[in-house]
């Protein structure tokens, strides 16, 4: 449910925003992934923890990337779009990290003092 309702929805929106920007400025777009994946070979490998960690790493790197893009853009129009993307990802990172802590998928860094 977390994946469907929040994460998927967010990234479909982010992809649409970026596609709109690229089309507007006439920049060549990259290839898209297939719409649906139906057959997977070894399904035991893909555990819940694996899915969660992949998603977590992705969101972390997108927050970094969006912050850098925000500082490096000159026009207010583009900067506003990156700010929106950054804030949406920050919001979802909050949710994901709490979920990971509850389900014990995340390895926590060492505590300051035992």
């Amino acid at each position, binding site marked *: 449910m977390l994946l469907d309702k929040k994460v998927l929805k967010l990234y479909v929106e982010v992809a649409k925003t970026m596609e709109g920007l690229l089309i507007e400025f006439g920049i060549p777009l990259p290839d898209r992934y297939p719409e649906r994946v139906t057959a997977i070979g070894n399904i035991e490998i893909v555990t819940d923890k694996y899915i969660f960690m992949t998603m977590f790493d992705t969101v972390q790197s997108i927050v970094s990337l969006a912050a850098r893009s925000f500082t490096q853009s000159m026009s207010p129009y583009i900067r506003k779009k990156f700010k929106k993307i950054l804030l949406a990802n920050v919001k979802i990172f*909050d949710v994901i990290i709490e979920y990971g802590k509850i389900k014990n998928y995340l390895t926590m860094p060492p*505590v300051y003092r035992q």
Partner: protein
Amino acid sequence: MDIISGFQKISELGTTVRDKQTLINVSEVWHLWDHLSERYSILNTTIIFRNFARDNDLKMVLDSGVKTLAQQVTELEAVLGEYGIQLPYRPPTDVVSAAQYEAIDDKYIFRRVFRGIQSFVETHAEAFLGSTSPTIRQKFKKYSIEEMDLYDKLIEYGKLKGFTMEPPPYRV
């Protein structure tokens, strides 16, 4: 998230500083300390440059920067004190200089402050990503958003005055 950080605050109410240190992780401690020492350094630089600024509206911009920084410094010092983390040395309270250097003109001051804030936005994002406890994460998120709003205003001011440098445009 506000609710979860509220829960954390309630659960931390009766704890001693020693106990609180078991709740915070090393990455957060580093980021908090690093943010405070960077802010001290930027505060010192801004106060020094305030003496050399010639334009009145640049002086106003620097003054509002100093005010925001001082407020954030107070907040950060409180958080570090709460968790019993060693504080860095502070810069002098104020710097008043009567000298005038031609080399340090308004454009140089603006560029220096602007590059500082540019790199700071990423620092905030990294600190946000590396924190596990909700209260500290929320604090970094707040600073991040404040910094981004400040950056928006500063870049428009810089463009108006002609202080910013435009990267080369995209042309096929």
